[in-house]
């Protein structure tokens, strides 16, 4: 926890100290732009379709569908999250 926290801080500090030519380097920029997209997508998939190392289909899938709809409707962040939570919670009642 502490290691990750300090490393994330170190990355910010490094940028203030590194030479500016790094920024122009396309070979560095592309992976840095793409990795967050891939990781977030993978995290969404795992958080929705997996329990531990098993693939499962449960109410979280419905919650994600609702979240996608909310995002497409340009709902604010908290509304997206709350809609997903409410969907999962309500479906579990039945």
């Amino acid at each position, binding site marked *: 926890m502490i290691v990750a926290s300090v490393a994330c*801080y170190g990355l910010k500090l490094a*940028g203030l100290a590194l030479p500016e030519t790094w920024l122009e380097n396309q070979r560095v920029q592309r992976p840095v732009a793409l990795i967050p997209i891939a990781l977030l997508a993978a995290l969404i998939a795992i958080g929705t379709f997996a329990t531990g*190392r098993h693939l499962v289909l449960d109410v979280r899938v419905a919650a994600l569908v609702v979240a996608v709809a909310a*995002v497409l409707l340009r709902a604010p*962040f908290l509304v997206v999250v709350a809609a997903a939570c409410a969907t999962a919670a*309500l479906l579990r009642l039945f």
Partner: protein
Amino acid sequence: MAPPAAPAEARRPIIRDALGIAIASGAYAIAFGAISTAAGLTLPQTLVMSSVMFTGASQFAMVGVIAAGGSVWAGAFTAVLLGTRNAFYSLRLASLLQVKGGLRPLAAQFVLDETTAMAIARDDPRLGRYAFWVTGVALFTFWNAGTLLGALATQAISDPKVFGLDAAVPAAFLALLAPRLRAREPLAIAVVAAVVALAVLPFVPSGVPLLIVAVLVGLFGLLRP
């Protein structure tokens, strides 16, 4: 911290925007505090992440991995990878901010999506610096207060699943990811990453699917012209 002189009439809209952003992210931090606590992290751990890591996507990723049963190291790895973009923000901001000595470590901590956007949107460098510091201080305050609130509220709940909190993490990531998917290539990468992660998931330890995805997309980014 004395922000460099900027015209007074130009400062008011900056303060208003900074507060708006900070309040919105405070609400977002409530969600983080709640999810982190629901994932089994202690109150001190949750608060350290918000004050030291202080970069939303990385924090959500770390608790998301831990909540999914991944190891702390897998979570840390993911968090740091997501945090790499801040180094690039710092690079962009370095010439604008011109921070020296003791202020530099403080300035570094405030380098985020929001502060970078606020700072580089100004034509006048003095206003840019002012926007950076005001947004940074406001965000840091609301972010940590929101985290504490969310964590304390969730501690009072016996089973987070009853409130569907396990569905909160994917929804939060989706909201973070959506603005980046406007073009075809990022969308294709996102879909492939999700499919690859699920395909390898049953065969490797928790957290490793993310590592595989990160390495693959990193190679793709490096090798493709």
